[in-house]
C-alpha cells in the first residue's frame, strides 16, 4: 500500500482508531493485571473490603503456592526460628513450612503430558499430513472430514467410555493415558494445519530429489521436513497450548498421579478459605510459557487457531 493511496486512512482516522483500540486493550487487560497483581498481595489485601489498589507487595502467594504449611504456636516458633526468607514469610502468619506443595508436581505433569502429547501429535500429524498432501488416498476428503469431526465431540460426551476403557486398560490416571488422549484430540488440528503447510512446499523439490536417487522416504526426511520446519514448530505450539490449558478430561480422568495444573489451580485452598494470592500466583506462572509462545508466534497465530483455514 503506497502512502499516497487515495484509500489510505487519514491521520485523524488513525488517531481515532488508535484511541478506541487502546481503550479496549486497557479494559481487556485490566482483569489480567488484577490476576498478576493479586499474586503479589497478602491474603488480607487480596480480599480487602473495599478492594485495595495500593498494597505492599509480598511473595506470600508464591510461597503458599509452592509449600505446604501448618499452624504453629508462638512457643514452637520461638524454639525453631525461621531460617530462610520463605520460612520467614510463613512465620509472619504464624505458620511453619512442612514441605513442598503439590503445585510443583502438577506443573511437572503439565510439562510431561503437554510436551509428550505435542511431540506425538506433531509426529503422527506430519506423517499423515504428508500422505494426504502428496498421495492419492482413497476417500481423502471423507477421511479429512472425519479427522476434523473428532474435534466436535464434547469432551464430556466421550469421557464416560474413555473412563471405562482407561480403567480396563490400566491407563486411568497415568501420564501415558493422558498423552494418548490429548494426542488424539490434537491430531485433527495438527493434520489440518500441517497439510496446509506441506501443500505450500513445491512438489518439485522432492521430485528433484527423487530423480537424484533419493527414496520417497529419504526425500521426505531430507527435503520436506526442513522446509516444513516453521510449520511444524507453530503446529507444535498450538497443540501445546491446548494440552496445557485442557480441563475437562483432566478433572474427570486424573487424580493424584497424572493430574495437570488447570484442575489444580482453582482449588488451592489456604488455611482459611481460597488462597487468592496463591491462585493468582499459580495462574501467572502457568500463563508465562504460553504468553511467550504467543508473542513469538504472532505471525502464525491465526492459522493455528483456525485449523489452517485462514492462512495469514
Amino acid at each position, binding site marked *: 500500500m503506497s502512502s499516497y493511496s487515495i*484509500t489510505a486512512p487519514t491521520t485523524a482516522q488513525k488517531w481515532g482508531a488508535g484511541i478506541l483500540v487502546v481503550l479496549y*486493550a486497557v479494559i481487556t487487560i485490566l482483569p489480567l493485571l488484577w490476576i498478576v497483581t493479586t499474586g503479589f498481595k497478602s491474603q488480607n489485601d487480596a480480599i480487602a473490603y*473495599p478492594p485495595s489498589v495500593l498494597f505492599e507487595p509480598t511473595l506470600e502467594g508464591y510461597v503458599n503456592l509452592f509449600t505446604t504449611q501448618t499452624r504453629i504456636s508462638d512457643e514452637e516458633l520461638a524454639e525453631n526460628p525461621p531460617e530462610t526468607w520463605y520460612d520467614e514469610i510463613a512465620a509472619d502468619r504464624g505458620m511453619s513450612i512442612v514441605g513442598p506443595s503439590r503445585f510443583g508436581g502438577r506443573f511437572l505433569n503439565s510439562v510431561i503430558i503437554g510436551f509428550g502429547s505435542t511431540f506425538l501429535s506433531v509426529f503422527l500429524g506430519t506423517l499423515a499430513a504428508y500422505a494426504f498432501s502428496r498421495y492419492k488416498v482413497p476417500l481423502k476428503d471423507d477421511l479429512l472430514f472425519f479427522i476434523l469431526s473428532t474435534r466436535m465431540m464434547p469432551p464430556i460426551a466421550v469421557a*464416560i467410555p474413555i473412563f471405562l476403557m482407561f480403567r480396563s486398560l490400566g491407563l486411568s490416571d497415568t501420564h501415558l493415558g493422558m498423552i494418548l488422549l490429548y494426542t488424539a484430540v490434537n491430531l485433527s488440528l495438527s493434520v489440518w494445519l500441517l497439510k496446509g503447510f506441506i501443500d505450500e512446499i513445491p512438489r518439485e523439490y522432492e521430485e528433484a530429489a527423487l*530423480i537424484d536417487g533419493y527414496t520417497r522416504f529419504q526425500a521426505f526426511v531430507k527435503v520436506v521436513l526442513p522446509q516444513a520446519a516453521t510449520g511444524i514448530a507453530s503446529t507444535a505450539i498450538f497443540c501445546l497450548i491446548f494440552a496445557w490449558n485442557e480441563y475437562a478430561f483432566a478433572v474427570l480422568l486424573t487424580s493424584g498421579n497424572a493430574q495437570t495444573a488447570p484442575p489444580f489451580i482453582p482449588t488451592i485452598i489456604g488455611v482459611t478459605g481460597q488462597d487468592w494470592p496463591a491462585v493468582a500466583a499459580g*495462574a501467572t506462572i502457568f500463563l508465562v510459557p504460553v*504468553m511467550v509462545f504467543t508473542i513469538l508466534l504472532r505471525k502464525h497465530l491465526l492459522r493455528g487457531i483456525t485449523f489452517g483455514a485462514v492462512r495469514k
Partner: protein
Amino acid sequence: MTRKSSEDRFMSETAIDRVAQATPPRVARRIRGLPDRAIAWIFIAPTIFLLLAVNIFPLVWTIRLSFTDYRVNRPNNEVEWIGLRNYERILTDSDIWKTMQATAHFLFWTIAIQVLIGFTLAWLINKKFRGSNFWTTVIVLPMMLSPAVVGNFWTFLYQPQIGLFNTVVGFFTGADPASFSMIGDVNLAPWSIVIVDTWMWTPFVMLICLAGLRSIPESIYEAAECDRASKWRQFWTITVPLVLPFLMLAVLFRGIENFKMFDLVVQLTGGGPGNTTTLTSIDLKREAFERWRTGFASAYAIILFVTVFGLASIYVKALNKVKER
C-alpha cells in the same frame, strides 16, 4: 534412467518442472523405495488408528451404553437392555430442555457480541495506526489463559464487595458496587458468563476478521473511489461481503467451542443460581459423573453430538456457498 547427471541437479525450477512432468508415472513409481501407496498408508495408519481407538471406539461404546441402564458405581447390578427408553426420557425431560435453552442463549449472545466487537476492532486495527501490532498482541492475551483458571478467577472479580468488576462498573455509573451481583442474580447470571466468554474470545473473532480485511485487494477500493462510491457504500458493498466468509468461519469455530462449553462456566457459576446457567455439558457431567447414570448420560451425549455434528454440517454447506459467490 535412475540418475540424472550432476549438472541437472542445479537446473532452474522450470527445468525440473519439465523433467518431472516428462517422467511417466509408471517410471516414477519404480524409483527405489517403497511404493507410494504403501508409504501413504504407513503414514496415515497411526493417525487413523489412534483416532479410532480414542474417538470412534468410545463413541460406538457410548452408543451401545445408551441403550442400557448401566451405572458405573453399581458394579453388582445386572445391566439391562432398555432400548430407546433413555432417549425418550431425555427428550421429554423439561429440565433438559431448559439446559438447551440456556445453551442457546449463551451461544447466540456470545457469538453476536463477539462478532460485533471483534469485527469493529479488526476494522479499527486495519487502519494501521502506530503501535497497532503491539496492542493487537495485548488484546490477544486473554485467549491464551486456561478457561478453568479464568472462570475461577472471575468469581473473585465478580464479588460485589471485594471484586474488581462491580467496583469498576460502580465507578463509571455511580451505582453502589454492592447493589448488584453478576453471578448471584437470576437475570444477570446468564450475562455474567457471556461477558467472561466475550472477554476471553473476542480476540479470536478479531484476528479472523483482520485476516479477512487484509485479504481484500486495495485495487477494489481504488476502483470504487474512482466511481465516487461513498465510504459508507464501499463498506457495505466491498468490505462486508468480502469479510463475510471469514466471519462465518469465526462463527463456526466459536459455535462448536461454545456448544461444548464446560470448564469456564462450571468454575464460574457451577450452573447456578438454580439452573440458570446449567449448560448442557454441565448437566451431562452431573448425570455422568455425579449421579453415575452411565446409560442415561450416554444417550444424552449422543444427542448432543448428533446435534452439534448436524448443525455444523449444515453450516459448513452454507459457508461453502458464501465462499463460492
